[in-house]
């Protein structure tokens, strides 16, 4: 927890408390009640007192409008051989940010496409080299892996810093205050299991006849990783959610390790359940279908047919597990993370229901398949609306009391890396 900063006062910045009496800046439903300057931040509070504002988040974007933006920009990306990508991305983020209203005021995105293009090219080169290296030899793959693991935490930090520094609300920029050292402590443990496996593969002289210790190493590494996964996620999220900052406020994540183990165990249960249900349903379907086909073919099945059915069963089960179980994990993780993020002055509350997310996810999957992918922009808007609108902000401070703090810009290369490796802020 950072020490509270003095509210600057000067000719431009009036002492905010004087303006905080009733001026709600035209925001409906908001009545400011803060009458004093900021009390010192003194740890976490549940804010069950009466001195608070509840700020709703609304998402006003529309699927049909985003579809128009998406298709025009996709065409431009294709025509320019990919170089338009940063401009398209900036337009997408401006649309999504601009339609995210926190207490009636939109977020803004300020990224510069030209800077992002440089980062994009750099990261594309890096990703290309990485994906090619493994094709040649395990040793080249290991070297590439080590290089990526070593720079990845720095890119991760730069990515968060860039994204937040280029996001604004009511004219003020967000910040990410995590240190580079913290990023390495948060992320390097995640690479240890893969590093052990890659090193093991590189150490085996004959890939086809691995020694006995190889299997033992693989199994124990995977088992240990599964056991430690909640700890690794917790370690990462502590870093990520502990360093978001806006004006004089900085967040921390007040969730214990136990909550992450409970979440992961429950999710595992749902995964297994979904897998069993999906497996039974799909096998029954495939068996019925296969039985009919075998009869058509004269009562004899062959190897190809078995393979196709095996493929259908595996693919269908994976698909159903993803569609059924992922929404559970996603919704519970969002609620856990964001409901425990905040500080003594402000906190978030996330009430994303599994049932709602499941419904939207299943509908998205169905329509994605039916429309051959053209539904993607609609799906994206529907998900953003559901996930954003289930979050609200509870604050002891009226927005008028918030003043800007110095910040660094972050590197656009980090943001591009986030695209390539699939990183997200989680909202």
């Amino acid at each position, binding site marked *: 927890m950072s020490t509270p900063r003095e509210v600057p006062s000067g000719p431009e910045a009036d002492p905010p408390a004087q303006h905080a009496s009733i001026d709600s800046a035209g925001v409906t439903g908001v009545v400011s009640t803060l009458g004093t300057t900021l009390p010192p931040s003194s740890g976490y509070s549940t804010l069950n007192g009466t001195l608070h504002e509840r700020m709703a988040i609304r998402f*006003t974007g529309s699927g049909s409008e985003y579809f*128009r933006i998406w298709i025009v*920009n996709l*065409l431009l990306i294709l025509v320019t051989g990919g170089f338009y990508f940063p401009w398209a991305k900036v337009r997408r983020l401006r649309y999504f940010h601009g339609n995210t209203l926190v207490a009636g005021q939109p977020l803004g995105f300020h990224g510069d496409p030209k800077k992002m293009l440089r980062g994009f090219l750099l990261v594309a080169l890096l990703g290309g080299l990485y994906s090619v290296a493994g094709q040649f030899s395990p040793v080249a793959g290991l070297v590439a892996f080590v290089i990526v693991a070593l720079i990845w935490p720095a890119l991760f930090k730069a990515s968060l810093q860039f994204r937040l520094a280029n996001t604004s609300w009511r004219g003020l920029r967000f910040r990410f205050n995590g240190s580079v050292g913290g990023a390495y402590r948060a992320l390097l443990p995640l690479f240890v299991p893969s590093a052990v496996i890659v090193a093991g593969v590189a150490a085996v002289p004959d890939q086809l006849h691995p020694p006995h210790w190889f299997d033992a190493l693989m199994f124990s590494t995977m088992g240990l990783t599964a056991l430690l996964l909640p700890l690794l996620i917790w370690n990462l999220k502590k870093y990520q959610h502990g360093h978001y900052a806006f004006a004089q406020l900085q967040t921390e994540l007040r969730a214990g390790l136990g909550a992450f183990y409970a979440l992961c165990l429950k999710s595992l249960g749902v995964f297994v359940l979904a897998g069993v249900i999906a497996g039974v349903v799909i096998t029954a379907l495939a068996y019925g279908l296969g039985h009919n086909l075998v009869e058509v*073919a004269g009562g004899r099945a062959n190897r190809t047919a078995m393979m196709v059915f095996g493929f259908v069963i595996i*693919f269908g089960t994976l698909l159903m597990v993803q569609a059924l179980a992922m929404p559970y994990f996603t919704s519970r993780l969002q609620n856990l993370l964001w409901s425990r993020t905040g500080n003594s002055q402000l906190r978030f509350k996330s009430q994303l229901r599994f049932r709602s997310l499941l419904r939207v996810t299943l509908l998205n999957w169905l329509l*994605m398949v039916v429309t051959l*992918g053209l539904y993607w922009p609609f799906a994206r808007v529907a998900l953003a609306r559901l996930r954003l609108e289930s979050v609200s902000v509870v604050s002891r401070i009226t927005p008028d009391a*918030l003043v*800007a703090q110095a910040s660094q810009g972050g590197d656009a290369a980090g943001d591009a890396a986030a695209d390539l490796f699939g990183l997200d802020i989680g909202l």
Partner: protein
Amino acid sequence: MNAASSPELDVGYFDGRSARSHRVRIRVSGERLLVAGDGIARSVPLAEVQWPERTRHGPRVAHLQDGGALHADDSAGWDAWAAASGRGDTLVVKAQQSWRWVGAAVLAFALLLAAGYLWGLPWASRAVVALLPQTVDQKIGEIARQSVEGELVQASALPLAQQERLRVAFERAVAQAWPGGAPRHELLFRRGKDKSLGPNAFALPGGTMVLTDELVTLVEGDEAVIVGVLGHELGHVRHRHGLRQLVQVTALGVVSSAVLGDFSSLLAGVPLLLGHAGYARDAEREADADSVHLMRAAGIAPEAMVRFFEKVAAERARQPAAVPSWLGIAIASHPADEERMRYFREASVQR
């Protein structure tokens, strides 16, 4: 522009230092934007304003270079003001806001994807592969060969004399077909470890070609057929199909993830699978053409390959397929046998 003709608009203003909102009036005067009211009086060059794009949903926010921002909840009011102040939409915004343009974009996008798939990517992969040295093929082929030798095949049981006879027949045909020199290749006789491989022949990047005993047995050692089959495999080597497919699949993956984003890697894999199968069938056709060229040069009627397909079909008839044909065509890596038999038969007639 004089003050009377330039319209004014009431908006919210944030100074970038505090989150407090000010009610101000803005208007454009010449090359400057004037902001006034609630104790604020500013004049900003128009070029230093990041103007919002017109959208149907969401408020309008103009960002000033020093961190200030102008917020208009009444988007229609802002758009009317911006238009009256001489600010037009960019072409991209016009296209995004018109369903007619969007329809054209969908059409153009589909055509571009189709053209890229049919001509662009095959051409680009040829160009990329031409830039890569042969050692790349050999390196990849070496890794593939290790896994094939270990998992799929074992030493051939064919008599050495028969192996040598087939090898000589094939090399003679190669020398006649490409007197200027054929690509580096190495023919291996191998036997399948189990029944999964069956009568088969395949080529690895870098020139390693494997012929199974099962295939030689199936065609009863028919030299003409085996030369034709090996000519087909040499075609794969000559066109560097292995490396080209690697390039094509990578490019397909990039495009498919650019279009579908991070929706689902499982779904994004479907166009990849289908697109790859399409390219694989094209590669087979190219290799068949090489086979015909080789057989003609060696004085063998391409009709021989028809015998091969008939034998394979007869073998397959003993274990009838239970897969509906529509399912097979979409994911098959080879064109239908009928099409390929027709091709070789016509090649024989043309001679």
